[in-house]
């Protein structure tokens, strides 16, 4: 199936999208022309939605080509700022946008999209399977138990998934695609530079790292998780659990911990607050969870000490 412009406007961050863009060879200056202003405006809106300045929406306000181009202009604006946090936010937003746009897509389109991201899927009648190598790469960040391979039924290397799950996994592929872009954009038209810097400042302001009131030094594993979160990285569920339980045990309040999580790209205030309160035993099961043991932390791959010489060993 050849990718048409309608497809590319919906799914700009694909192999087909990149090759289409290469063929177009649109100079940035040309976007400043009055007839192309729609692209710039749409790009700014896209970025503002990604940064949380405006509410998210997939409603298309421009033609397909402008829509497609606006996605890349927004990306260039982010790359120009060299701000990792903003890149994570854009990646998270585009992943969400993909999920929203792909609702109701027929199986053939979803399979084509899987090809776009080199994801190995196989369809046999109604059954859909993903190769475990693709599955593991895409579920890396997923914390819900149903995504753990142990709760699946891999057979001869293939994991059965539903069409709904394929969409979710594809949206993660979009996120990974954007996060992995290392290219730098050195020049932008003045107008876009100003806008990009403004959005960057907004993100930095809202996620300003707060120093938690903790007594003494943190264990290296907890410190590393905390730093990763302050850098805006989307760390694993186990890492978040470790940080939360440890901070609670050191007397941090729910509000202080929630505030720390404001820097992660997938931050959602109400979900974060509920989860921290749940771990603190204030909601749900009313069980107050204790920090995991060193053994668990090692098993989860969160122990940064390789020589076993940790002065916090066993301390909880």
């Amino acid at each position, binding site marked *: 199936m050849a990718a048409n412009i309608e497809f590319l406007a919906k799914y700009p961050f694909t192999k087909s999208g990149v090759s289409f863009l290469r063929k177009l060879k649109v100079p940035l200056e040309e976007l400043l022309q009055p007839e192309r202003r729609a692209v710039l405006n749409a790009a700014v809106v896209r970025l503002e939605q990604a940064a949380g300045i405006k509410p998210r929406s997939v409603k298309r306000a421009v033609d397909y080509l402008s829509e497609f181009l606006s996605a890349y202009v927004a990306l260039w604006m982010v790359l120009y700022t060299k701000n990792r946090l903003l890149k994570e936010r854009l990646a998270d937003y585009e992943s969400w946008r993909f999920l929203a746009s792909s609702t109701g897509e027929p199986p053939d389109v979803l399979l084509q999209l899987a090809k776009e991201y080199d994801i190995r899927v196989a369809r046999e009648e109604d059954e859909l399977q993903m*190769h*475990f*190598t693709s599955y*593991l*790469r895409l579920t*890396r960040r997923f914390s819900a*138990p*149903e995504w*753990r*391979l*142990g*709760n*699946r*039924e*891999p*057979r*001869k*290397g*293939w994991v*059965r998934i539903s069409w709904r799950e394929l969409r979710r996994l594809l949206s993660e592929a979009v996120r990974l695609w954007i996060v992995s872009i290392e290219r730098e954009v050195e020049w932008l038209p003045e107008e876009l530079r100003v806008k990009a810097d403004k959005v960057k400042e907004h993100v930095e302001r809202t996620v300003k790292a707060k120093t938690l009131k903790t007594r003494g030094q943190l264990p290296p594993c907890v410190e590393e998780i905390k730093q990763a979160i302050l850098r805006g990285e989307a760390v694993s569920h186990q890492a978040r659990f470790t940080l939360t339980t440890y901070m609670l045990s050191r007397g941090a309040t729910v509000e202080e911990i929630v505030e720390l999580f404001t820097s992660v790209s997938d931050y959602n205030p109400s979900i974060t607050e509920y989860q921290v309160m749940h771990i603190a035993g204030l909601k749900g099961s009313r069980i107050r969870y204790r920090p995991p043991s060193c053994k668990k932390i*090692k*098993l989860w*791959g969160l122990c940064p000490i390789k020589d076993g010489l940790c002065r916090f060993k066993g301390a909880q």
Partner: protein
Amino acid sequence: MQVQGRTVVQMMFTKYYEKFSRIIYVERIDAREIGIVPFSGSMSRHMWFKEISSFRKFLREETPLHCYYSVAYYRDPSARMGEKGWIGADLVFDIDADHINAPCRPEHTPWRCKSCKEEGTKEVEACPVCGGEVDSRKWFCSSCIKAAAKEAVKVIDVLREDFGLDDIRVSFSGNRGFHIRAVSDEILQLGGHERREIGAYVMGEGVEIFGKRGIIQHIRNVRGGAWVRMPTVRDGGWKRRIAEYLLRAIEEGEIFHGVGEELKRNLKLALSGEAKPHMLVGTKALRRIIKLAERGLAELGGKIDIVVTEDIHRLIRVVNSLHGGTGFRVVPLLEAEVASFDPFSQAVVPFNEAVRIVVQYPVPRFQLLKKSYGPYHSGEEVELPTHAAVYLILRGMAVEKRESIE
């Protein structure tokens, strides 16, 4: 006769490499990092050999105590760590009898009292003479290795059946366990996180026994019980393994007090896939089934060292080299040989020249090449064939008796 400056261990290793270096093999050695521990000095890493013949020559000339190769392939294996240019890595599993609590362990745990110096070879918590603290050493027997082999067989089954990995190389580690290496382009580029998840899967970590997505799938509660979907032998992954485990338990009469005959019959049909897997089970019976399934998961989970599996730069022992902690050969094995492998006869390289040693630590009775030795007490002076003497010396249980050279 003693040659000054060269120990019996060094002499045995030298003779071994002079005679057998032709069987040393490292696939794609030109893309691997080689590491060695010499007889004196610290470990050397970042070594590179273009061809296996030059590596064999090196072994003959240098005779290291330990030698390793990287599971990773590099563009420039001799460069510093961050500059090697990682291409990919085999997927490895390390099974060590040390991580398995074999029931025979209390029978062979040498100890010495820190206060009164009393000693023995069977496990004690405190000195039976003075009640003082004891210093214990680890010791392994054929049963310990059998327990490790059982784990290796489990891991191989998971790799084949669940992950579809067919090119699997197994070797005896040279000490107390096995190395399993899956070779495939498919897994070459997996990162540490993905490898850890595979390791966790092999261990049964994170598998939900009962729940909405559990092995025993909870559908809905009813008064006095619940509708569940039982796992069946036709399922994949852990569901199949637990279904087989529960079936065996029924057949062996282990299931269960308080579970009626009719339920057992229905359960058997469901587990074997001969009837619908959906069942209504009473609360008490369900609790027992869940408990048994949990036990099954703990038994069936492979006891691996997950840190090795997740490490994409790991060095592992070169096949057919000698292990510097035992003097045993790192033996490559066919899968069918793993379960019956006995390192105490198959990994010992016979060097029969007699050597006198002084025992430093209580040694339990042991067998090498079908011949029994020991038990020995500290201070005892004994004459043993070289391979047995080297084994005790490298285990830290004895020292070579050196005659003075006048």
